[in-house]
């Protein structure tokens, strides 16, 4: 380097330093690059694609709402924790300012480590394992109920269901997927069943199964042999379909199939694959408020992007994925910067009152967890997941016990 080149370099550095305070202005003019990590293939592929619909409509809706430009950087985790980790690394290398996703507790835990190491904010859309926000992470945020919250709300809604239908079920078999989410839910149920004394039933058998199971004959045989009043189920999508078919094959007709808070039975594919067999299944899950203003806006955008589809089949997946991007965009607007630390600080200060999903405003506690997210009791009626409880949000009355599948 000669003297002239050296002087030019120093001058350029000086100009850059002088302009540094205005960097925020430049950044605000730029786009927010959001790395969206979802399981768009593998055995959670359907759910990942459902979440993706919420991500795809976010840039347009948020541009209208906040005037913020968003660029989505999509990555497929392939329903694989290791792939989720490497995809997160790659998104950060490629310039993602914030990560969003990944609809899976195992993948979320892996991505959280990457986000924390690299100092990039990570807003979890859907993942319930409580330990993710118990690690003291500074860059990890979750706008979703933890497994204990889901279980507490889900079990309370089962009590409400029995009261609303004047039914008493005394016994249940608890079946759950044997993955991070399923185990967290099982722990939660174990912890809450003893405490919620108003619930009239006891669990007579607990059966865990492989989330990638192709055949659930043995599992259903065991459950049926316990002769429970109803099936308490923590499932994913594919296994829920296999399980429902197997119940019919084995001529097992309990009073109902009730999920205290898991995906699967309210998803579009569940209806497509099972037709009338999907009827009357119940899922107590965090859900969107159909009366919220933002829901109407999102619903319109959803219909525009997916003319042959309905938001109701993607309510939880698309809703929480949309909200996670909204949180990032809102923080970007306030931070006026894409600097990861500034974004993380702004996310920590989030207070979104005009929201889509049921529950309290979006505010993060010191652990990065949103509290007060509400649940609804959804029952599949006329091939549509329908809110039947709480009564204030219900659009139909619950049916329990469910009619036999032959009458359905």
């Amino acid at each position: 380097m000669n003297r002239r080149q050296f002087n030019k370099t120093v001058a350029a550095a000086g100009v850059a330093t002088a302009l540094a305070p205005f960097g925020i202005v430049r950044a605000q003019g730029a786009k927010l690059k959001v790395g969206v990590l979802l399981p768009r293939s593998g055995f959670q592929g359907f759910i990942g694609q459902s979440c993706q619909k919420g991500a795809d409509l976010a840039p347009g809706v948020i541009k209208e709402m906040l005037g913020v430009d968003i660029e989505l950087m999509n990555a497929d985790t392939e329903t694989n924790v290791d792939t989720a980790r490497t995809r997160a690394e790659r998104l950060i290398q490629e310039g993602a300012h914030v990560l969003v996703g990944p609809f899976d507790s195992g993948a979320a835990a892996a991505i959280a480590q990457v986000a924390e190491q690299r100092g990039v904010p990570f807003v979890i859309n859907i993942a319930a394992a409580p330990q993710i926000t118990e690690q003291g992470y500074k860059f990890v945020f979750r706008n979703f109920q933890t497994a204990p919250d889901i279980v507490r709300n889900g079990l309370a809604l089962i009590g409400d269901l029995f009261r609303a239908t004047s039914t008493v079920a005394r016994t249940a078999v608890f079946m759950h997927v044997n993955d991070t989410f399923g185990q967290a839910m099982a722990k939660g149920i174990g912890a809450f069943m003893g405490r919620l004394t108003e619930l009239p039933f006891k669990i007579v058998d607990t059966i865990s199964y492989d989330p990638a199971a192709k055949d659930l004959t043995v599992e259903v045989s065991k459950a049926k042999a316990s002769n429970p009043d109803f099936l308490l189920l923590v499932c994913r999508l594919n296994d829920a379909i296999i399980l429902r078919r197997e119940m019919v094959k084995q001529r097992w007709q309990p009073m109902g199939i009730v999920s205290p808070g898991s995906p699967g039975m309210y998803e579009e594919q569940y209806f497509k694959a099972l037709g009338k067999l999907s009827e009357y299944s119940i899922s107590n899950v965090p859900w969107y408020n159909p009366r919220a203003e933002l829901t109407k806006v999102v619903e319109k955008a959803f219909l525009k992007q997916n003319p042959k589809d309905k938001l109701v089949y993607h309510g939880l997946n698309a809703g929480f994925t949309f909200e996670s991007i909204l949180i990032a965009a809102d923080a970007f607007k306030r931070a006026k910067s894409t600097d990861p630390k500034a974004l993380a600080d702004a996310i920590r200060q989030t207070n979104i009152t005009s929201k889509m999903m049921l529950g309290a405003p979006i505010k993060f506690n010191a652990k990065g967890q949103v509290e007060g997210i509400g649940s609804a009791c959804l029952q599949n009626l006329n091939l549509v997941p329908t809110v039947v409880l709480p009564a204030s949000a219900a659009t139909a009355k619950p049916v329990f016990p469910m009619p036999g599948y032959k009458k359905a």
Partner: protein
Amino acid sequence: MPAIELVANVVISGLLTGLVYGLMALGLSVIFGVVRVVNFAHGEMMTIAMYAAVMLYAAFGLDPFIAVVPVAAAFFAFGYLLQTGLINPFITRPEHSQFILLVAVAIVLVNGLLLAFGPDARNVQVDYQLESYAIGPILFDKARVFAAGMAVTASAALFAFFRFTRTGKAIRACADNYLGAKVVGLNVKRYYALTFGLGSACLAVAGCMMILLVDVTPSLGPAYTLLAFVIVIVGGLGSMPGALLGGVLIGVSEALAGLFIAPSAKSMFSFGLLILVLLFRPQGLLGRKS
């Protein structure tokens, strides 16, 4: 202790599924027994057969039991061409070359299926799929009974072909003594191709039956390749009755492990069985010592 009806239901289900597993593994065993090449794309090829059955059902409403005929014929041709065009040049090459070649074929097939069909699970919805026969408290899943019946029929036909036809005997001669077969004027490479075609057709039948029992996704292939290996190693690599016996053993033992230990430990149990066989009878239950 589970009730006897429960155990009986679970054993019957495992037995019926095991017969279809056995047919799938039979293809692998036949190919190895004659050509001495281990088909590492076995599960992936069966996945293609499952997709073929799904497409024929969607396009023409063909029941997988009827779809067996065109799919098996197409797979015979595919297997024949694969052997003549791709595998025959590798017959005399080291085993690791054959291994890499067929693993590459497997990867191409999985990704080809992903490109063609996407990651979504697909199935056929025939009328009898959700029905079952009941004899007292014992239930027989109709689709499983039919699939197992087809597996037994196809296996018997294959046994008969190798035992009673001139071509079958010639193939066995090639398997027993490569040099001797060449000396007496047999076109060994043609018979190898025929064998690969037959193994593939066998696989196609298994695929058409399997689609009645499970939904298909592109990622299903590697799991079935592994399962076929477990079955043929337990039964005896190269032994046709061994493949069927291995299938039934794995099917029933997985079902019983699910019942008596934990459903999520089913696969662990079959691999435990594999380790025991490798330790105490490395040639497999019906295999011959090399």
